[in-house]
Structures are given as C-alpha cells and as structure tokens.
C-alpha cells in the first residue's frame, strides 16, 4: 500500500523572495524527485507566496519530502491536499488551425469542456479550457486529431473546500 505511487499535491506557504523557489526545487531535485506540475503566486499578504506542486511518488517519499521542505527557513508550512477535501483545477490555452472541415468538431469539443475561444486571428484561434487535470487531458486527446498548433498548461491549482 505505502509503496504505491500516485500523484500527490503539496501546498506550501513560503517567503516571497528570490531564491526560495530554487531552494524548494533543489530540495526535491537533489533527492531525485521530479516536480510534475508547479504553480506559484503571491498570497493576499504580498510577503508570502503559495506554491502548489505535484509529485508522482509513494506515500513514504511524500512524508520525507514534506519534512525536508519544512527544514527550509523560508518555508512556513507544507500540507498535502487530498482530492476529497480540495478543489483542483488546471487551465490550458491551446492554439488550433481552423479549417472548413474541423470547425464544427472544435466547436463541439469547446462546448463539451465548457471552454471558450479567447482570440481569433485569420485561420488561427486560441482556446481556453479549465477543468480537472483529467478533463484537460481528455480535451487534448479530443483536439489532437484536429491539429493542435501548440499549447500551454498551468499545472494544478488547488484550494481546500473549507478552512
């Protein structure tokens, strides 16, 4: 059980200073753990940033990572966010080439994932899709055959449902 790897989401409150992200990344990277997704911005207090990152590991590795992160002077707190107690979202921007043939299909997919077209330039459009990580991945799969030009993903953001 303990040894089973899965995606874990960690939420960190850290000082909003240069170098802090490098310390956090180094603490994981130096021990051979890959950061799969990463999201950072200031909190309501501009001196404090929130880092949300995901790591694909087993539970005992996650416990070690949490303790090592807490050793950093600039890290105030580390908590693991679980699916049941948290809302998790990811946003994707994806640029598509529009043709007479794919237009209708793209419109249908946008509708299915409750996305929207952010901008249109001639035969090129940028679509925004927000959802769970799985939603975003399904959207990519559906759009792929229609010709994706490029895309960018935010990585997971997450917030506890209640305090």
């Amino acid at each position: 059980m303990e040894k089973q790897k899965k995606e874990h989401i960690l939420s960190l409150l850290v000082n909003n200073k240069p170098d802090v992200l490098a310390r956090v990344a180094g603490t994981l990277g130096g021990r051979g753990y890959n950061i799969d997704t990463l999201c950072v911005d200031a909190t309501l207090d501009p001196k404090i940033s929130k880092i949300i990152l995901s790591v694909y590991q087993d539970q005992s590795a996650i416990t070690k990572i949490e303790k090592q992160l807490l050793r950093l002077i600039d890290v105030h707190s580390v908590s693991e966010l679980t699916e049941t107690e948290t809302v998790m979202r990811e946003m994707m921007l994806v640029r598509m080439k529009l043709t007479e043939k794919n237009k209708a299909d793209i419109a249908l997919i946008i509708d299915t994932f409750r996305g929207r077209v952010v901008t249109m330039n001639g035969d090129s459009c940028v679509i925004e899709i927000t959802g769970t990580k799985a939603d975003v991945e399904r959207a990519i799969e559906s759009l792929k055959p229609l010709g994706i030009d490029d895309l960018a993903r935010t990585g997971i953001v997450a917030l506890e449902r209640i305090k």
Partner: protein
Amino acid sequence: MKLKGAEIFIRALKQEGIQTVFGYPGGVLLDIYDELYRSDITHILVRHEQGAVHAADGYARASGKVGVVLVTSGPGATNTVTGIANAYLDSIPIVVFTGQVPTALIGTDAFQEADIVGITRPCTKHNFQVRRVDELARTIHEAFHIARSGRPGPVLVDLPKDVMQATTDYEPLPPKEEEPIPPPKPASGKALYVHDLIAESRRPVLLTGGGIVLGRASEELRQMARRTKMPVTSTLMGLGAFPASDPLWLGMPGMHGTYYANMALTNCDLLIAIGCRFDDRVTGSLETFARKAKKVHVDVDASSINKNVMVDVPIVQDCKEALRSFNKLLADQNFTVSYEDRREWFDMIEEWKRNVPLSYCPSDEVIKPQFVIETLCNLTKGKAIITTEVGQNQMWAAQFYKFDEPNMFISSGGLGTMGFGLPAAIGAQVAFPDKLVVDIAGDGSIQMNIQELATAVQYRIPVKVVVLNNGYLGMVRQWQELFYEKRYSQTDMTYAPDFVKVAEAYGTLGLRAMKPDEAAATLRKGLEHPGPVIMDFRVAREECVYPMVRPGGSIQEMTLGREMIN
C-alpha cells in the same frame, strides 16, 4: 548614528559576542579588513580558506559556541565549500561571511565573481545575500540565530562590496536578557509509554549520537542511563557524552564498532535512540538492524525520524528537554531497577565482551597504530581534546582513546573529510588555549591541509599532531585488501615528505619514532613541548581496523582480527 556597512559588520559581530574570526582577505573585503585593523576582534589568518572553515568548526565543536569565518569572493568563497558541507553533515553551528563583487556587477561574470549562494544552497542550513546596507545588521543576527537554534548548522552570508561601503542609520539591538532555564515540561503521553516500555524491557539499549553533544544533554543522559540501568552505545559523533569508564558503556556500534555493541543492538528488545540519525555506517543492513526491538527515537529534527529506520515511538524534541522531562518522570514514578534485575542481559553482554574484546596484536618489532593511541590515552589520562583526520587513524582513535567527557572528540563524521583534523585542532586550541589538543592523523590526510602548520606557528597555537604513518591511504588499502584481492590501486603513499623536516621548515618541532620502544618517549617529549609539534610514527604498514562489518552487511556479522578470536 550613521555607519558604514563594514563598521556595522564589526559591531554586529561584537553584539553576538564574537571574539575570534578565522579568515583570509581579498579585494572585495578591504573595507572590512580595514575595520578589523582598528577593532579588538582577534583575526586568525589561515593559509587556505578550507582551513578557516574547519578551524571555525573545531572551535564550535570544542566550545559549543558559533564559529565565524571571513573570506573573499570567487576563489576564496569556493574554497570554503568542503568545509561548509562538512559542518552541514555534522550539524555544526558556524557562520561564513563571503565577500562578493558590487551589486551592480553581480551576474556579469565579473572578476572573482562566484554565485556562492547558489553553490552552497544544498550544503548550508540557510544562506543570504545582503543587497542593502539597511538589511545588514538584521541579517547578521538572523544568521547567528539560525546557525545555533534547533538542529544547528552552517549559515553563509554573502556581502557585496558596495554594501560594505554604503552608510545607513545603525541602532544596536537591545542587549538580550539571559532566559532562565524553564522547569522540565510535564511528561507527555508518549513519555509515559516509553516509561512503561523500559519497565517491561528485559534487554534495553540506549543509542546516542551527536545530538547529545550539540544539545549539551550529556548530564541528563548519564542520569537516565544510570537510573534505568540501560547499557549505552554511541555513534562516532556522540563519543564522550557518556563516559567510557562507566560499566554501562558498550563502545561505538556499526561498521568498526565493538562486537558487543553490535550484538547488544541486534539482540535488544528495546532501543531508545536519542540525537542520532541512523547513518548506514551505524545500522549496516537495515533489514536486520535491531529487528527484535521496539524502537523509540528522539530528535529535534523531524526529518531524521523514520528516514532510515522505522520506529514505534517518534518523539520530535530537543534532546536535553526530552531527557529532562523523562528523568523527572522516572523520579516522580520512583522508577528503580537494579543490576540484579538485569542480570541475564548483563551476563550476555559480559560474555560477548569476554569472547570478542576490542584488542589488537601487540608487537615488539613494529609500532602498532593502536598502541600509539593507547599510550597517548594513558599519558594524557584521557583528558586531551582529540581531533582526527579520516581513515584508519580516525577509527582507531574512536576505538582506543577513552573519552569521559563530551566536546573532547572532534572528528568529521558525516562527510569524512581528509584534512579536517589539523585546522580543527587549531580551532579547538583557540577556544581552549590551556588544554592539550592532539590531532590523530594519517600520512595521507595530513598532507591535505598541512599548510595550516604555519597558522599554528604564527599564533603560537600549540597543537600536537600524531601522524600514524603507514605509507598508504590506509583505509582504502584495507578495502582493497579485503574486497579487491590486494590490488593496491593508487593507495601507496610512500612518496611523502619527511614530516620531521616539514615541521622544522615551518619553524617548529618534528619528532620521529621508528620502533615500539621509542613510541612512549616520543609522545612524552612531543606533548611536553610548549609549541606545535609533528610526531611521525612509522607504524605497521598493513594493519587493518577490526572488527569490521562488510558494507551493506548485518552488524552482527563482523570480520574480526586474529587477536579478537578467543
């Protein structure tokens, strides 16, 4: 009051109670060195920046105070990295100040620029670059606080040149009031549980580490061990915290530990580990380590607990605090146990001791390295501060010098840094000018920071260096002998300088002993000399350190020396 950065630097150090700095100047530090010239802080000019860090580290280990280093930018800063990593792995409180190019030039590959904050990020407890003079004083005080609090460690503060030249309003911190020691905290539920575990245990063992020395919990440990009649074993880093002369003492465990300490760990039914981190050199194979025991682990650093060894009772607490409340609990509960109650366990231990004592084959022909250390221990009555280099010399020192007090054994445990012993001895001697300080060295290691002999001579720091000269990188040769069929690849050190002449060239005394009957006289003469001394002992070339656990093997499966097999 308007002051320059360099002046604030000196004032902040003085407010931290710093009297001594180990350092080496350079271009970006000229303003600070100019202020030092006027101040009454003692600056010890080392001969290599690595030496400065090890000296500050030795100073800290001997005195329990924070050691301070001051070096220039670029190569001065990068030369400190080994020393910093060494202090980091052994959790030693030092603050390293590095000069830096002016802020406007940072990031331009300016002359003597190195990103030392980036380079030392993974080997410091924390590091800073001071970008504005008005942050300087606060940063310095914070650096000292971080270095000494919780699990101690090295902190680096990078000081750009323009920040040292800029001026700002300076308000000294209000003097800190000594906080009275609070009464022991009431015992937690966990402590009560541990109390019951001890009461039920028939074969308990205490395993202690450097945390007891760093946390000054030696007295509390002695109380607890004696009240509960628990035999004590301690890692290399914790030697001296529990007296080697006490009947409860088992010696060091692990790769080169005593047979009886390893057997006790393997067979105990209760293991209480305090202030140690279960290094692989101590545990051997984790699968067979103390398999029969319920395990309790006390450490200030939560990340040390359940890292290597999974325990039943994790307690994240300062060692001293934990031991104090624990002792109080034992007293309140009127806990008593007699040697008679533990008869069976002590009989087993006695038998292991009888069967495989810590010993070596004496010789009239060649000097045995163990004999040199035994004689040194007798002559100094076990009261010298001992530093070591790394290798066989270090293990023999740990085995054959009997330490009764903490802060007396100063050795590079975590990083295993050859070249640590001499500068560390200098630092320890600076902390205690009147004590006898001896570096037990190998002929390989001593050459790694031999230049610090000039520092010792210049400042009349009377450290004694005992070179166990086997003409080999002995510990590596031992592994080649045991695991690579004696293919001595690149471990012959016969091409070494004449250490007596080296001492003389640096302007101090060098002595040599070739035969066993010269050893004691050489030691006596060397120890009595008022200045620094190098004593060159030509020892048995292919002696091995025993007992030995194969790397990755179980600690109860030890290779023994011929003499140990009774």
